[in-house]
């Protein structure tokens, strides 16, 4: 059981969350060329080791999170809200 420290709900079992995917992908503008979209949608770096990835606390606050995690050891280094305003709001609160 991976335990994920949700910035909103506290540390919870990973089974409350849903894994999204590679958090480093920058999706192009909607009118960007097909090749850009192809690369974002189909190509993966598939890092073995530390990667930033997206998770949603789907059975909790439903916030999308950026989780820095080692894909070999499963160790989590950091968790922050994906939405920049949320991340900023948390910093202000802290």
């Amino acid at each position, binding site marked *: *059981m*991976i335990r994920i420290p949700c910035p909103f709900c506290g540390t919870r*079992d*990973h*089974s409350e969350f*849903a*894994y999204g*995917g*590679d958090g480093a992908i920058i999706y192009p503008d909607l009118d960007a060329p097909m*090749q850009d979209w*192809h*690369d974002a*949608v*189909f*190509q*993966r*770096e*598939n*890092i*073995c080791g530390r*990667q930033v*990835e997206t*998770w949603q606390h789907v059975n909790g606050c439903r916030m999308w999170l950026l989780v820095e995690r080692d*894909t*070999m*050891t*499963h160790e989590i280094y950091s968790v922050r809200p994906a939405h920049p305003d949320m991340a900023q709001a948390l910093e202000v609160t802290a």
Partner: protein
Amino acid sequence: MTRFSAWNVFWNGVTGQKGWSRQWRDPEPKPRYDVVIIGGGLHGLATAYYLAKNHGIRNIAVLEKGWIGGGNAGRNTTIVRSNYTQPGNREFYENSLNLWEELSHELNYNVMFSQRSHITLLHSPGAVDATARNYNTMRLTGNADVEIWSLEQLQEAVPHLNYGADARFPIMGAAVHKRAGTARHDAVIWGYARAADQLGVDIIQNCEVTAILRDGDKVTAIETSRGKITTDKVGLAVAGNSSRLWNMAGMRHLPIESHKLQAFVSEPLKPLLDQVVVFGMGGAHFYISQSDKGGMVFGGDLDWYKSYAQKGNLPIVQDVAEAAMSVMPCLGRVRLLRHWSGVVDMSMDGSHFICKTPVDNLYLNAGWNYGGFKATPASGTYFADLIANDRPDKVIANHDLKRFERGLQLDERGAGPDPKLHG
């Protein structure tokens, strides 16, 4: 090399088992090979075997980081079936099944392919129709033995599934794939290793690839923990770790994510289930069969997050047990003996890659999702053909890396470009 036969089993029994020798050699790596296959799993060894047998290339090395068959070859639930329906996949898996049927004789190694039927439970009229479409396609493309069973037929064949009023998803019937079944996974590894070795292939274990050296668009040599090896052609067959080797070859992206899949076996029991039974409904997924030794072998979904670790988690253990009990309520007192996990290449459409790469003499065999075991003989055959002739056979022409650019979908489930959904 002593041929395997009842006679030699008898004769060696009488003469103290002296006639058996190493099933494959343990050679030192040579400095140069015509072809180097990286990955001593099922696909790598099968490829080496068919390269030697079908294409007469004998100066081949298979490099294995650990011991052969230590990856997913020994971690899967051993199901062999061909009920794929997308063009390309259909022919590929049908050909694979045909090869499976003769594999024990071909390799002179009993791989125990037991064509005991693969039964997919159906729970709604919609599911019956959707499956009928697939099984009709199979009928029309070379597999005459598939059937749709009524509830009564199923009850007669497998009386101890949950037909009770308390079933959350009542069973309505079943899709039956009779030539499908199970095989002994380790035997397949050893059988290919022994047969390839007999044809002169060097199987080099404990040989970790540390670098893939390139000169422009060509691989020139492989650096390994046991020295540098030069070669004309390199085949990658390292599913689970494809991206890592891809990086070593100087490239960054593949349409693949590594995920882990758990598998389970119970204590050995007297015969309890004579077929492979598969359940998929309400977001759950479960498959079960009984090994010849008596253990109930079963599995379910991925662990749902990307991982390179061969360690499973408890929530999936629980999910799989729930499905097991819901499908076969008599399993309550049967005990789980072991569970383990393997790392699988999950691709963007749930289908595999056997293809050329941007590097001229580097060939890729990857992206096997859940399906690598059953694919073994065809994968070896077509990958060997690709490496030997430097062009894909038409059956695998669409199993390339460019198919997403073309808009081709080999998506059996229609799940879309999310690797974890293709289980």
